[in-house]
């Protein structure tokens, strides 16, 4: 589904990704871990199309298409979803209105019929249950004054609405207490399937107890320095990142 080859990216001349190679197939869950500043969030942002980053080398193909050549909205329409680490507050735009506009533009791109008000509401109510989110919250300005947990649940709700093929969760566990974490993880698990894939970007192993990865990759200095199974995550939890840094230094 996603093939990343030798990806290099920089922000304002500061190199952050230094040759990432990664392949994600349908049905798989990949975890990307690493110490702060290793480039995890940058990778997520580059895949979603944030303009602040400049890709200097390498390529990323999504379902055979050149992902890096697509506008951010077209990536979303083609099936890439980025759950933001810090969801943006947008005063004056309700989640419902926002999602209605977004979903219909996405559906149009996918050659599906746009939804009228009734079918949209029906779909919305169904998806709301996944993350236990209240309609009154969705009628309010997008993320404005939401708690950390509400913001992240809103992200997963939007993901459920847009039905992506590849979901990238950027530090979705940050700022969540254990109950909120469970709700969010539960929502993500229900959305998993044979046809779609998930990339979980996280600093801590904690989230991976609930969203169990097939593969774990460790990012350091803009490179994947180690890959393994979920056992690697446990090892990192127990030993920290220092041994990875040492290994990388001697390699």
């Amino acid at each position, binding site marked *: 589904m996603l093939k990343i080859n030798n990806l290099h990216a920089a922000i304002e001349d500061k190199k952050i990704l230094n040759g990432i190679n990664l392949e994600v197939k349908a049905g798989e869950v990949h975890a990307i871990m690493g110490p702060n500043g290793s480039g995890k969030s940058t990778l997520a942002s580059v895949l979603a199309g944030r303009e602040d980053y400049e890709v200097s080398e390498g390529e990323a193909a999504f379902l055979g298409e050149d992902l890096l050549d697509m506008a951010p*909205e077209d990536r*979303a329409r083609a099936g890439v979803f980025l759950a933001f680490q810090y969801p943006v507050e947008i005063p004056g*735009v309700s989640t419902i209105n926002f999602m209605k*506009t977004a979903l219909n533009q996405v559906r149009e*791109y996918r050659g599906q019929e746009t939804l009228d008000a009734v079918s949209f509401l029906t779909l919305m109510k169904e998806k709301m249950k996944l993350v236990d989110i209240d309609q009154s919250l969705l009628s309010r300005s997008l993320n404005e004054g939401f708690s950390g947990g509400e913001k992240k649940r809103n992200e997963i709700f939007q993901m459920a609405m847009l039905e992506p093929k590849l979901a990238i969760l950027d530090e979705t566990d940050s700022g969540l207490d254990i109950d909120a974490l469970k709700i969010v993880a539960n929502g993500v698990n229900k959305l998993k399937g044979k046809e779609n894939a998930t990339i979980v970007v996280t600093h801590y192993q904690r989230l991976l107890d609930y969203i169990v990865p097939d593969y774990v990759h460790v990012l350091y200095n803009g490179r994947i320095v180690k890959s393994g199974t979920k056992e690697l995550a446990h090892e990192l939890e127990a030993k920290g990142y220092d041994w990875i840094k040492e290994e990388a230094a001697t390699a």
Partner: protein
Amino acid sequence: MSNPVSNNQLEQLSQNFEQFETSLNGSKGSIHDTRKEAISSFLRSGFPTSKNEEYKYTDLSKLVGKKVDFSQRRKGSKLDHEKVSDRIVEGLDAYELTFVNGHFQVELSNLPELDGVRVSGFREALINNEQTLDDHFSKYASFEKDELVALNTGFSEDGSFIHIKKGQRLDKPIVLNYINDVHENQTQNYPRNLVVAEESSELTIIEIYHDLGEDTSFTNEVTEIVIAENAKLDHYKLQLNNDKAFYTGTTQVSQATSSTFTSYTFTTGGAVIRNNLNVDQEGEGCETNMYGLYLVDGSAHVDNHTTVDHKKPNSYSNELYKGILRDKARGVFNGKIYVRSEAQKTNAFQSNKNILLSDTSVVNTKPQLEIWADDVKCSHGCTTGQIDEEALFYMQARGLSKESARALLLYAFATEVLENVRVEKIKVFLEKTISKHLYR
């Protein structure tokens, strides 16, 4: 006068005034004495220049001097029902006074015929020697203090006269429909409105400015609004002019105890727009709301100057002006709040927020608070910035095109002002107008 261009114009205006006097055919009363005083006051000072602190960013002498030809003064116009029958605001159920080039057109109007309210053209009210007109004319908007008021007072010939009696509540808003017929040449208009709302009455007035044709217009308006105890008045100004329209206007409001005044100013067009909104709270427990929204492009220049003067205790004022500017447009906002020593327990809030969509658009904003009382709550703030790129990316990452994300963000920005509009059809009209602007 130091400005030679202005000199010629002042001479021309002096001649125009003489012609105006001749046309009056001797029917002159005390109001004409006021006119004469006002015009000589204006001719002494001329149009305000940037040396005048109140016109620092809006040098009317220069701006008007360049484009307005006072030797062209088109009075009549052959507009008929057909040409103006398309209501600007779809479905709005309202009484209407239509003005073409500043002159009231009774055949294009729809006046209320109710006992509790007197509505007519200003000229007709003069001819009828309305006592209310005599009592209030030029008692609030001082021509000695402002050149633009002086110019209007000098040429005050037509406009509207609205008097709602005690306890009356009009069933529909009154629209003042100002059409500039600029098909063939320029026009200059001096609409003068007097609105008197007696005790416990309720009234909504909607001024709409627009053009038929492409030429230049110059409008210098004064509206005096007198609101008695417990009365409520909503006042809308919809400025929808073409890009050659020059508009200067003063809305002078006097509020008595426990009265409520709400002002809405929407500007989507014009070459130069200068709105002066001055509210004097003369009684206790007054409420004043001032909302403004300007969406301008090209080389439009929009200047909103507002003053609210809290003179008595337990009063309230709330002001929210927002602007979206693109191309080389310029916005000016100056909001003054006075809280006199007697006006304890006053709450006054003010906010001006702007989004600049181009590097060449400019906003000058200045809040001014002068507080002599010690037990008050006052706040003010202003922001000017670009569209939030992070929000834009967030929306794009959910599949929204950049254009619709932008429009949605700007629309949301404007909504904070729009949601206060109480006339539903006006709200819908403004929503549509704004959408059209934002998707451009």
